[in-house]
């Protein structure tokens, strides 16, 4: 598979990959901080667990939003004459990024409701 194709697939999946990374980080960090009783530490006045969830969620949302914009840009550039798989992948990229934005936001919501290590 050529480098261009690999790039297309990665862009198509970027939103979901961002969710997977967000999920792994927030779960691993919460477990570690709470398991080791390190959760009392604060970052700019915010508890470490909440800060990590917040920052990770914002970063993941950023990646998903960028992949949505980029997929749209690519799709807009392709035009009607482009190869069908290219159009398909860019459209799938837009859909996947859009869904990912919702999922990533949903994933971060517990941090706004619950205390860190209850």
């Amino acid at each position: 598979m050529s480098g261009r194709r690999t790039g297309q697939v990665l862009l198509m999946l970027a939103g979901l990959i961002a969710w997977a990374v967000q999920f792994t980080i927030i779960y691993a960090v919460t477990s570690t901080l709470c398991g080791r009783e390190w959760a009392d530490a604060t970052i700019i006045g915010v508890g470490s667990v909440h800060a990590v969830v917040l920052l990770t969620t914002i970063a993941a949302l950023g990646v998903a939003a960028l992949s949505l914009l980029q997929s749209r840009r690519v799709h807009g550039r392709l035009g009607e004459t482009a190869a069908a798989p290219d159009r398909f992948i860019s459209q799938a990229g837009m859909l996947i990024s859009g869904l990912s934005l919702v999922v990533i936001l949903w994933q971060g919501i517990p941090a706004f409701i619950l205390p860190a290590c209850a």
Partner: protein
Amino acid sequence: MNAPERSEAFDEREPALPNPLPRPAGEFEALKKAWEAPRGLSFITAVNNTYVGLWYVGTAFLFFILAGILSLIMRVQLAAPESDFVGHDLYNQLFTMHGTVMMFLFAVPAVEAASVYLLPNMQAARDLPFPRLSAYAFWAYFVGGLVFFCTIFFGLAPNGGWFMYPPLTGSKYSPADNADWWLLGIGFIEISAIAGAIEIIVGVMKTRAVGMSLDRMPVYSWAMLVFAVMIVIGFPAIILGTLLLEMERAFDWPFFIAERGGDPLLWQHLFWFFGHPEVYIIFLPATGMVSMIVPAMAQTPLVGYRLVVLALVATGFLSFGLWVHHMFATGLPKMSLSFFSAASTAVAVPSGIQVFAWIATIASGRMKLTTPSLFIIGFLFIFTLGGLTGVMVAMAPFDWQAHDSYFVVAHLHYVLIGGMVFPLFAAFYYWVPVASQYALSERVGRWVFGLMFVGVNVTFLPMHVTGLIGMPRRVYTYPVGMGWDALNLVSTIGAFMIAAGVALFIVDFARRFRIARDENAGNVWNAGTLEWLPNANYNTRSIPVVASRDPLWDQPNLSKDVQDGRYYLPGTATGGRETLVTSPFDAQPQYILQVPGPGWQPLLAAVFTAAFFLLLTVKMVLLSATCGVLAVACVIWWLWDTDPGPVRPPADIGGGIVVPVYATGSMNHSWWAMIVLMVVTGMVFTCLIFSYLFLWLVNPAAWPPQGTALPDGISPFVSGALYIVSAVLIAYASRMLRGEDRRSPRSVPVLIAVALLLVGGAAAADLRAQWQTGLSPSVHAYGAAVYGIVSLQIFFVLTTLIMGLYTIARWLAGRLDSVRRTTFDNMMLFWFYTVGQGLVGLALVHGFPRLTGGV
């Protein structure tokens, strides 16, 4: 035949036919001869997907019946309170085997088996790219599965529940061999499933009809691609879990024993990291089937193709974020639970998208109420109910109430029977005309559906109530007066209704199913996809160019032109079996893959693999080891004929397209398989790293435990340097083989031999360094985790050793040169992986305790 309205991706340009008529004399006969199945006793060595696929589906269905009979025995026991039909010990074995056999021996193999049969037909490939691997996967499963099942007749069947939680399944509470049967018995099933997954990934990506670009791929192919990737990511967790638990049981390495630094929850994490995606691993292929059947029944293209593909891919991802929802009652922090709760509800979105796409398709066409349609409607109803209770148990507070009660039993059966069994029966009714001379009876089919649909609801709907009023799952009996009597009796009656439906299906199947040798029942549903082309052992006479997602609807003469040999590769270019490899995105012809034919090798390798695991269970170590060696020998014997090289110049497949009959590097199909295998091994290793870190987390101030010395700081660098130099030597040998170096490639085997010594030395040096500190694997989980990582690395180094020696042997036999070098390339990939894993392992085992300073 009326063609339905054209699908949206239809390309108006009618493709020109690449091959003229009349076809040369003898061309068709040569093709038929190449694909002929062996006769007599050797028939069992057949590897064609059309045979192996059917045996595979048949065996999976056999296990469905066997596990179903176990459930009937359980239902008889529970029909009345204080029944003594079976005792508690047998009951424990019954529910464990019912769950295990249904999940591992029926559900996953059944959907894999169906795809072995269907995928090449649907994609107009002549066979899957590795037919011998399919045969190996089937036979290992067939032999091993049957022996495993027979343990129930000797009171030896596993009895710890299908998820085998320690400490109950540890040697302290389960000293007999029952648990070992599960751990080792399931081992080869996992190998078989992974072999199948590799086959499917490469098959979907590389062997499609010309022009069947990603956007024209059948939804079933998409579903199977996502399915196979999920197996590759998810199954390694259970492989590692079973390995660790068996090491604990056999050698007393305390991974899960809390008093010695282990943690039973580690098992739950590993099991459910596999176990939850497993549900979707079963469900997605079924949705793929539904997405093929609904358009045919409604005679209109699937609505929302892109959204359905999105849903499949999204489900593939999200399903890996759900595993802890099986562990809501284990006392994990609420924030952690909520992450999984969120993901568990989010995954309902892609499932919902698919359901709406099917409903929209049904609404936009004219759905005929055939038996497959009925099963689809039954699926939508039952699965949706299961999905709704799924959203309920995704909420931790509700789950705490319903946990381990019959409510959960009801939920999981609604999901699994609705989500997988009903689509599978729809698929039987729908696709039997491809494989058989006659379709199944529509009249009987309605009865089968009626009995099963009513039976499932009569059995499982009351169980929601039984659970909510307090009946726990897995109890072998209950006292009078709990209010559970009538509900249980109703459930038992329902179970026998399902059984009657299945029995009726078997009778009809026996009456109507006759393997189609020359002519099948034909396109009885007027479906639009390629599996309905005329087919035989060689699949399609010529490999078509497709211009849409429903080519039979949009290209009216396709069947005849394909059958006349007017499309690509109408004969055999090399005189043997072959299929056309196409590019993964655009499906343009790349090269002709010389497909291996029948042989005893995969069958014998499979039998010895199964024997290796099964004999190990009963502690016949010497005989087991002998079988292991024989299995490896058979695999080597099997591989010896592969990597055939360019046996002839590039061939004209029609339309002026000339393609080579051999390819190397990243275009080669086995290179892809090797990459997928490395993902599998990488996941096993990742899960091991997770286990190490998890055990660190649960052992505050004891990592390593007090009094444990770390190896000196030099030894990891020595091992690491040896690994790196070995990899550099192999890379250099690769250049030499390619002729990019001034020196003659004659030194290639010498370089491999030296590199083997180095890589072996690296692993040995690390083992020695750990051993010299006096660290024991059986005192504390720290030692067990360290030796776990070291042992896995030794296993990989030994495998590299076998591959290296095999590569040298091929060189000496004149089967390896600058062009015919796939064997070398595959070995090199594995080598680099082994070195990478070794370096990460060294960094973790030596660096991490120093980094954390015992905290």
